[in-house]
């Protein structure tokens, strides 16, 4: 049962990653739209895979490290998105180059 749950969670995470990568390539309308395809990987796919591997592995130091890596990526993903959004805004001259300094 645990193996099936782990397989389902990992498969779901991999599916989200594949769809995000393909979607980012196919999205040609705007950089802002393309930028949003990174978030599902950092905020959904990686935690799903990590939880799936924890279910398979059982609770312990390895599971803690897996969750820590997923948590770290979960936290820094939006930070990188904000930095990218600021960069795109500067290039498209929607915000001043010195913003937000």
């Amino acid at each position, binding site marked *: 049962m645990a193996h099936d749950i782990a397989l389902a969670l*990992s*498969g779901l*995470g*991999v599916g989200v*990653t*594949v769809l*995000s*990568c*393909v979607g*980012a*390539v196919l999205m040609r309308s705007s*950089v802002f739209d*393309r*930028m949003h*395809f*990174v978030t599902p*990987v*950092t905020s959904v*796919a*990686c935690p799903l*895979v*990590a939880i799936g*591997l924890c279910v*398979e*592995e059982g609770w312990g*130091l*390895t599971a803690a*490290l*897996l969750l*820590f*890596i997923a948590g*770290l*990526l979960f936290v*820094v*993903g939006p*930070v*990188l998105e904000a*930095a*990218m959004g*600021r*960069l*795109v805004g*500067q*290039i498209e001259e929607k915000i001043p*180059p010195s913003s937000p300094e």
Partner: protein
Amino acid sequence: MLTAVVMVGALVPALGLAAFGRPVDRLIGLELASASTIVAMLLFIRASGESYELIVPLVLVALSVVGTLVFTRLVGRPRRGS
């Protein structure tokens, strides 16, 4: 192991995005490739059974954050002489 192999397949479009196009699009591709590589590494390390190798994706998270932030500063910087 199958999921890890599929993840490597997902890396191909991300690396393609990182290799061609405008600098901003390539930076998005780099960010996508980094996140996908971390997920793929988690799966490969689970398949190999060597849990001490988890230090590699942990360091990759830190390096990808710093690298992406540095690139956003460099790409956004006005070119010299303009």
